[in-house]
């Protein structure tokens, strides 16, 4: 983790309200270090896009403060934006060939012509767009357009890159390639703010993850810590070389003493004795040595044993909660505050 004084972005109680008392984002306090990749996760309407738009000056904050690269977010203006890169959720295109789009965008940013030409070649190769370089935007596939959006933004220098769902519509290989490249750039010192719905992607790429829900920051931590804190129970499955008789199962269940819960299919009293015992447990680190001892003590022999890893998805679902589905159906109605915010801000509140 970078040193704490290496913050390139720091927000305190940042908020945006689209009408008096109606907030799309509220009390957003987070920091971003140089070379760090910060993931913004949340359900539709959580406020991810609003956060990106706020932090890139496309929306004016209605409360709180933020300092980005030493500039006040409210007054930084052009000087601040000239050090940022932004890949917005909505596709933006000029009506020239893909190759010309890249060099034209570089020209807009004041990149010297020769640098722009060589960088365009680099991006075309990196994002596998060589076959489409002479095509106009409307002749590109959805995935090609998305790859192009990211490639175009990388045509100029920046210190912080904001990516709003950059991998939507991409195949697994393209996605992996882009993530690997972004990881490399982060190692070179580029700070990245990245929104996605693909939790596995966030787990792979992000140093820290901010989980937003209904415009509020629920958690901000590393993926590992989030999994540990909110990932819930893990499933431990043991298959033995011989059947485990019901009395032994009953003894196992009582011996657990709250270390875990025996799963239904292997409950004591099950009609048939099977070779399998399965349980759910929160702290497998302490449980596993105990299990090993218990198995040895009862002269059983493992055929195989597996422990299901905690996932970010598990942590995410654990945080947002099962009743979020109900909230979602309420907030996705056309008259919901989030929909209203979408109309007011002219953006996707995702």
């Amino acid at each position: 983790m970078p040193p704490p004084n290496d913050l390139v972005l720091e927000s305190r109680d940042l908020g945006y309200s689209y009408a008096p008392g109606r907030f799309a984002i509220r009390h957003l306090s987070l920091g971003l270090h140089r070379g760090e990749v910060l993931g913004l996760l949340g359900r539709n309407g959580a406020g991810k896009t609003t956060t990106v738009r706020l932090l890139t000056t496309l929306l004016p904050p209605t409360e709180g403060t933020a300092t980005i690269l030493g500039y006040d977010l409210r007054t930084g203006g052009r000087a601040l934006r000239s050090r940022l890169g932004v890949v917005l959720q909505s596709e933006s295109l000029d009506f020239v060939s893909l190759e010309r789009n890249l060099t034209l965008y570089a020209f807009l940013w004041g990149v010297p012509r020769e640098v722009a030409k060589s960088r365009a070649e680099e991006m075309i190769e990196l994002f596998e767009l060589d076959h489409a370089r002479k095509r106009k935007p409307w002749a590109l596939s959805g995935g090609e357009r998305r790859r192009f959006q990211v490639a175009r933004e990388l045509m100029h220098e920046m210190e912080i890159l904001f990516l709003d769902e950059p991998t939507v519509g991409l195949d697994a290989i393209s996605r992996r390639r882009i993530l690997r490249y972004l990881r490399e750039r982060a190692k070179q010192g580029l700070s990245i703010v990245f929104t996605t719905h693909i939790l596995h992607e966030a787990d792979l790429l992000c140093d820290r993850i901010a989980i937003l829900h209904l415009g509020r920051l629920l958690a901000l931590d590393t993926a590992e810590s989030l999994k540990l804190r909110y990932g819930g129970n893990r499933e431990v499955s043991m298959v033995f070389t011989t059947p485990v008789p019901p009395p032994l199962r009953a003894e196992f269940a009582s011996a657990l003493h709250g270390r875990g819960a025996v799963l239904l299919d292997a409950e004591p009293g099950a009609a048939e004795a099977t070779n399998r015992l399965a349980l759910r447990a929160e702290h497998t680190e302490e449980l596993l040595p105990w299990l090993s001892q218990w198995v040895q003590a009862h002269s059983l022999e493992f055929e195989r044993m597996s422990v299901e890893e905690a996932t970010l998805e598990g942590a995410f679902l654990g945080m947002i909660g099962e009743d979020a589905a109900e909230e979602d159906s309420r907030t996705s109605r056309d008259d919901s505050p989030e929909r209203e915010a979408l109309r007011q801000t002219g953006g996707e509140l995702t």
Partner: protein
Amino acid sequence: MRLPPVLRLVVRNFTSNLDPISITIRFGQPVVTIVVLGTMFSSIISSSVTNGTSYTAFLVPGMVAFQMITGGVISGNLFWLDRRWAMTEQIFSGPFLRSEYLGGLVLTTLLFSLVGVGVMMLVGLPFIGIAALSPLGVGTVLLTVALGSIFFAGLLITLGTRLRSANAYFSIQSFLQLFVIFLSTVYYPISASTPKVLAVIFYGNPLTYAANTIRDAFAGTLGGSALEGLGILAALALVMFVAAVGAFRTLELGPIQ
């Protein structure tokens, strides 16, 4: 060398979104009007109606004035396409101010209008001759078209900031274009026989002042009425530019259809 932001935006405006076919049609339409309409109607419209000149000679200054609409429409369309394809938002997230983006659009408008003026002059001169067009006259023509272009660009950009549907934008733009052209003195003068209501509408139309001023410049009769026309155009251009600036300050970004 790194160009100033406004000029970079102008270069980008010329490079993107402007396809050769639509540009050819935009400049070609008034040329065809001068050649075909002028030639055909000259034989049936008496020169007494057109202040002693042929109908073609009457039409050429009108078509020169018409270039301010061409420029304004191009600017409005550029802005609309930028909004539609989210380039406005993308540009605003970069090292540009909103005022620079607006300045880039207006400058693009002016350049287009002035190129249009050149094309119309080249086509029209064989019909009207150049004798009476003094340097002051040329300056007046350019200033008139420039002011008119700013007015129409401001009008269409303001409209573009407030509409969220392509159908609505292009329908209103077509209607405005038709209304402004035909209810002006581009095709026919105001005379004693012009119905009073129509005359009032004509004088409420900036294109009338532009066409009349340019006719005076071509005829070498620049005087008080030309100055008055320029003053009205300048005031209208200022009002529409301020309206466009205001609309830009409160422009809501995001998806439109």
